[in-house]
């Protein structure tokens, strides 16, 4: 196509019913780098032969009787442990970041129970995974119940 003829056509089109919009783009694609992360390393756990999870109600972080029964058995081991890691988790209902906050509240409830029972707060590490690491997959009530938990690890 000769530029001059396009120009003439454009002029004619303009005379007829208003100008066409002229646009020009110089296109070049962006490049994207890909990065890999590593796995978080934890030391070997203390073997205490106790249930390693306590459970919660929906959108709630209060310790129930069952949870307190479990935690009471932990006290004597927790006193000997060098470090205690409490991981708070939620079921999949509700928004992710809110659940991350809720998971932390659950782990803090456990931490407070341990502190009240004489465990030093300095050796307790509280982590929340929100709903990111379900213990059981699926959208059933039983899966939800299994996932609303705090996992206790002694080191």
């Amino acid at each position: 196509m000769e530029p001059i003829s396009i120009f003439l056509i454009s002029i004619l089109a303009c005379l007829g019913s208003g100008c066409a919009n002229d646009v020009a783009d110089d296109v070049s694609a962006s490049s994207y780098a890909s990065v890999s992360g590593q796995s978080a390393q934890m030391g070997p756990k203390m073997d205490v032969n106790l249930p390693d999870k306590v459970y919660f109600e929906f959108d709630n972080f209060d310790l129930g009787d069952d949870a307190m029964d479990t935690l009471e058995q932990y006290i004597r081991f927790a006193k000997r442990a060098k470090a205690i890691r409490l991981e708070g988790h939620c079921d999949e209902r509700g928004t992710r970041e809110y659940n991350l906050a809720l998971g932390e509240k659950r782990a803090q409830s456990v931490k407070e129970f341990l502190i009240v029972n004489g465990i030093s707060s300095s050796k307790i590490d509280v982590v929340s995974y929100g709903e990111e690491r379900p213990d059981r997959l699926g959208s059933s009530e039983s899966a939800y119940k299994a996932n609303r938990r705090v996992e206790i690890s002694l080191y």
Partner: protein
Amino acid sequence: MISRKILENLTYNFLQIDMSLKLFFISIFLFSLSIFSNITIEISRGTEEPPRIAVVPFLYDDQSISNLLTNQISDNLSLFGEFEIIANSDLIAFPSSPEDFFYNDWKILDIDYVVAGFISLEEDTSKYIVNYFLFDIRQGRNLLNGTARSSADSLVLSSHKMSNRIYKQITGVDGIFTTKLMYILNPEKDKYQLNICDINGDNEITLFDSPEPIMSPDWSPDGEKISYVSFENGNSEIFIQDLSSGKRNSLRRYPGINSAPVWSPNGNYLAFVSSRSGNPDVYLFDLKTEKISRITAHYGIDTEPSFSANGRKLLFTSNRSGTPQLYEVSLITRKISRITFDGNYNARGRYFPDGKNIVFVHRSEGKFHISIKRLGKSGLKMLTETTLDESPSVSPNNNFIIYATKDAENGYLAGISLDGLAKFKIPSKIGAIREPVWSPFLN
């Protein structure tokens, strides 16, 4: 120039005879692409009587180049059901410029618009120059004369740019065909990816992958950086990653959760959530000075901040009333006002780019739906019908919302147009896909 034109015409005549065979090969090619891509788009419903548009294969001696461009433009314009594409087999003429375009040829097809064009190769740079034209048949007008210049490896992007121009010229709304979607993919247990893809699901790229969870991705307003939360060091930690270099920086990590980073519209701040004071509150991180200022201070959960379009307000979720509700805080006066009053779960709000509306997750009868609300007005409108809808993100032209939802087992992405006419689904062939974020307009 003239001799090439003759050559193109000769080749073109030959190709027209050969067209059906060529189209067969092209369709095989596209089919194989969609097999390798993890994501496919399924449109459930188009607009009612969408405008009819023909995209005439652009004149060029290499028909594979021409078809690559025109097929992509056709796919774009029909992606959300906003246009009905006239099949190539129904075309009655193959114009390539205003010079050989006759409106009367097209009137009998009951057609609204025609896109036509021709391609040439710039010899010294080996770049393709695409001249393309948009014709309005009803008005008998040439609406758009465009040129796009690109190397061979940018032809698809070039077709997206052309689609943007055509879309804008017809609808008056900015096209989103060069924008991208970012999301978290969880292909299997203990494997997490932060990916981006074109809005049609093509060109999926992994930006970051980790054996530990990744969450809360967001784009910088210039589209050159992203932020997200990674658990790679054993706790939630906020990272900023440069997209082209892959260079990553961690925000200073404090005990407790470090989450929900979002960029201010001017790109100078990140709002984020930290529980360093003992419970989750919203903070601002100044990216230049690295200074941190606390925005909320309440013993309840304050989280999920989002900047208003002018950067003067934050929307956030707080359970200070006893249930999660949305609040606004002025970054100038620090005055906090409650926004939502309907029901007992309203969370993860985002402002629309127009600044007048918000989109958020609302629980009704135990089900979580994407809902919208006009600021300053009472009530809300639920947009979705599935039960576990979350993480809404608005397209930069205000027209679409993409969100995450779930069927029996796996998470997938779904979208809806604000007029409610187009709905689309982006399932993943591998594992769960969630937390979609629509990119800003990209250059």
